[in-house]
């Protein structure tokens, strides 16, 4: 009995001396955003000169294997200078001070670069609150799976971290000084939440999606961001085939894309007024409910996709003013018809455009095929790339206008 207690005591003492994972909350370097660009190649003949690499530029690092291909930038917040602070915790910095600290390192594998950051950052990097990953266009064109593998595998990463593609240098996005929020990564992370207001923003675009798509060999899209000094704009999308980017898709096409994929959360449809009125103005309709159903029709001469879209709309703006009364059944019917024709045209043209330009099945037709007829799908799976380009879309759009606002 006595021995038992002694052993327990010793064990207790031993455990108390080692709180292995204990790390103060303020002693972690929270990484809020990551930007990945292409690294400019080193001058010829000097690739392995240690002298050239070491002292010249903090951003260079000797890599263990291969050549530095990418330039990674992480964004760490400087909390003492944050503007929106809980009161009583000290005064916040003025508007001129730096709110974030962006570190850039040129390297090859992200894990290695990540550890290299620890040579410059006084707190170990911590990724559990990563808000956004921004990737440069050129990097995306070379393929995502190599850079993103660590993000999939590491336990600290969240599957809900959003990814964005930008045509400019990704680093500039992180340099944006937002006016309301404190940190650009947080600002950027919250932008897709506006998907309820417009369909030009893609909202299901996180690491999880990309991981799923790459593993199931589906093509996917990621949102496009561009920036100015203090603003970031998120609209349009980048098309990926396999895991390489093949091109951009404009804002209007993105709208159609969302319709086809049944992922519209909100947005607008703008149509022309019927032409026989004076001037022919515009009517804007707000999307309240949207539902799309895609059914494949397998025929001998090819596969057709029947796309049935249903939309419930509210009329929110009408250019004609008081010349036309909106509370008129025939008027409403005319507008509904216009919407249907317009949307049908747009969606068909988007599909054809994507088929011709990219040949990437971003509409998830392959998943639909698989769901519809798994046996048939198993047969044609290998040929899908070719077959996709020949799929004929049959679009039916049904619009229903429910409300017209508070005026006639």
């Amino acid at each position: 009995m006595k021995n038992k207690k002694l052993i327990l005591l010793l064990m207790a003492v031993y455990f108390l001396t080692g709180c292995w994972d204990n790390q103060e909350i303020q002693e972690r370097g929270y990484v809020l955003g990551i930007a990945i660009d292409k690294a400019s190649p080193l001058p010829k003949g000097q690739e392995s000169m240690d002298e050239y690499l070491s002292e010249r530029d903090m951003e260079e690092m000797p890599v263990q294997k291969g050549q530095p291909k990418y330039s990674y930038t992480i964004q760490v917040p400087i909390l003492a200078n944050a503007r929106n602070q809980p009161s009583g915790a000290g005064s916040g910095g003025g508007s001129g001070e730096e709110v974030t600290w962006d570190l850039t390192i040129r390297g090859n594998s992200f894990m290695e670069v990540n550890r290299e950051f620890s040579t410059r950052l006084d707190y170990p990097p911590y990724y559990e609150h990563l808000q956004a990953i921004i990737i440069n266009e050129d990097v995306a064109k070379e393929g995502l799976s190599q850079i993103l593998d660590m993000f999939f595998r590491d336990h600290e990463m969240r599957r809900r971290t959003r990814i964005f593609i930008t045509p400019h240098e990704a680093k500039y996005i992180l340099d944006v000084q937002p006016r309301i929020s404190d940190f650009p990564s947080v600002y950027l992370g919250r932008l897709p939440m506006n998907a309820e207001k417009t369909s030009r923003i893609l909202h299901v675009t996180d690491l999880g999606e990309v991981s799923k798509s790459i593993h199931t060999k589906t093509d996917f899209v990621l949102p496009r961001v561009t920036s100015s000094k203090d603003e970031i704009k998120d609209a349009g999308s980048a098309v990926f085939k396999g895991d390489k980017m093949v091109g951009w898709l404009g804002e209007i096409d993105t709208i159609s894309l969302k319709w086809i994929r049944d992922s519209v959360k909100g947005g607008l449809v703008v149509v022309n007024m019927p032409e026989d009125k004076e001037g022919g103005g515009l009517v804007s309709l707000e999307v309240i409910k949207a539902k799309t159903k895609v059914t494949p029709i397998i025929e001998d001469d090819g596969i057709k996709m029947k796309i049935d879209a249903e939309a419930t709309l509210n009329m929110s703006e009408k250019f004609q003013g008081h010349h036309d009364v909106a509370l008129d059944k025939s008027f409403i019917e005319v507008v509904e018809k216009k919407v249907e024709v317009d949307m049908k045209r747009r969606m068909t043209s988007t599909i054809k455009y994507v088929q011709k330009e990219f040949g990437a099945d971003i509409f998830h037709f392959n998943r639909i095929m698989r769901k519809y007829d798994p046996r048939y799908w198993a047969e044609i799976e290998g040929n899908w790339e070719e077959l996709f380009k020949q799929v004929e879309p049959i679009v039916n759009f049904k619009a229903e206008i429910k409300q017209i606002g508070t005026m006639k």
Partner: protein
Amino acid sequence: MATMRKIELYLYNVGNDCMRLIDKIKGVFRKKAVEKDKLFQYEEFKERYVSKSLKENRDYLQQVFTHTKDIIIRNITIRATKQNLMIVFVDGMVDRNVVNEHLIKPILIDMAPENYGRRLSFEEIRDSFISAAEIKEAETFDELVLQLLSGDTLLFLEGQNRGLIIGSKGWESRGISEPTTEANVQGPKDCFVETLQNNITSIRRRIRDPNLAIEMLKVGRRSKTDVAVVYLKGVIMDGLAQSVIEKIKKVDVDSLLDSSQLEYLIEERKWTIFPQSVNTERPDKACAAIFEGRIAILVDGSPFAVLVPSTFSMYLDASDDYYTRPLVASLVRFTRYFCYFLSASLPGLYVAITNFHPGMLPPRLALAITTTRVALPFPTFVEVFIMESVIEIMQEAGLRLPQAIGQTVSIVGGIVIGQAAVQAGLVSPIVTIIVALTAIASFTLPNYNANLTTRTLRIPFIIAGSTFGFFGIVMLALAILSHMSAIETFGVGYFEDFSPYRLRDLKDTMVKVPASLMKDRPELLKPQDTVRQVNNKSSGENQDEK
């Protein structure tokens, strides 16, 4: 006639003197069995019988009580019959009124004329002359001395080898007031006092069942404290009363000053921080427990009754739950359960999550906490420890404060120290809030022992949280639960009302169902008579018939 009388008296006196002479001679030959500083034990009192000689009795008593001066021995002589009586009592413990008016007066003054001059026999005095309510007889000194020291009056008659014990207890006692530790908003507000008889009266007033059993025991070698074991015969589990009484009888201590001492001597596990019986100051709570099938133990000198067997939910039970609306009471009870766990684990959880897993917090919160901690000198663990110690110090100091400076210290301690420490940059405001919140949460618990339990548990949780993070906290909670599951009081487990799922018992634990649904007594106590009430229809149904 007068001369005859004179001769009679003279002879009587001579006889008395001879007796005294003989006593003195006897005393020379009798060994000096008594020393000056002898200590007396009740065991030897048992052997000593009342002697027929009043003087011997008086001498013996004076010997026993040489070192105290508040034992009063009053010699009474009935003039007419020349009988000598001796009255002994303790000053301060007797009700003088009883002694004067009802003991001495009837014998000396109010004697009816026809008895004047007649020698009174012992039985007559005992049965017909003393107008006190309670009279007992005793032959040996152990009972006489015990009752004398309990506040009764002794009466000795010359020539009798028996003594009378007349009940005359009356001492200053605290009046029935509001309970100091268990306040309630609704319901009765009387509480137990230090006198056993008053407490039993409080209970008797609420339980007028003739089957109410009150067993009296005396515990403590020197204190001979009265202990009453109160229960309802026919309701209680078979054998429970016997085992409790046996356990109490086995207790062998010098003194019993408070019911909590008895509580700790009859419980099964000594080395645990969890209380195993409920103690309460309120008679309504004690009576409710008796009605359920539990036993209440009352100890003379202590205003706290001990309720046995007890289960965990009793510690989180306040009488208020029974006197307010049931649905509302359920919510309040739920809060109390939540507070119990919260006040033990919150500081530990805070340390665990901020140091080990800040990823669990939403980013805004994590960044906010980080911002407040940026310039702090101490690691979280030390900070929490310091603030916890400060709160403990303040709580302990608050108990001992004289009324006058109570306000000052609470202001100084609470506001100034907390605020100043935060502003000086020594501790973060969040830690202050958390520590204050846990302290307040622990006061929602109605039972003081439960309060202390949570305070004690806080420290292991902080240690577990800072060595192993969330995992440590969960494991510690599981270890504590395992420990609590193994505690038993008199055959009833600690968690008996949760453990096998019995609908009857669950009705009164975390939630409180309306009173009309509580038809039976809790099954966990295995009562012999299970029905509490017959189905009670609500009165609304009768209104239609008006």
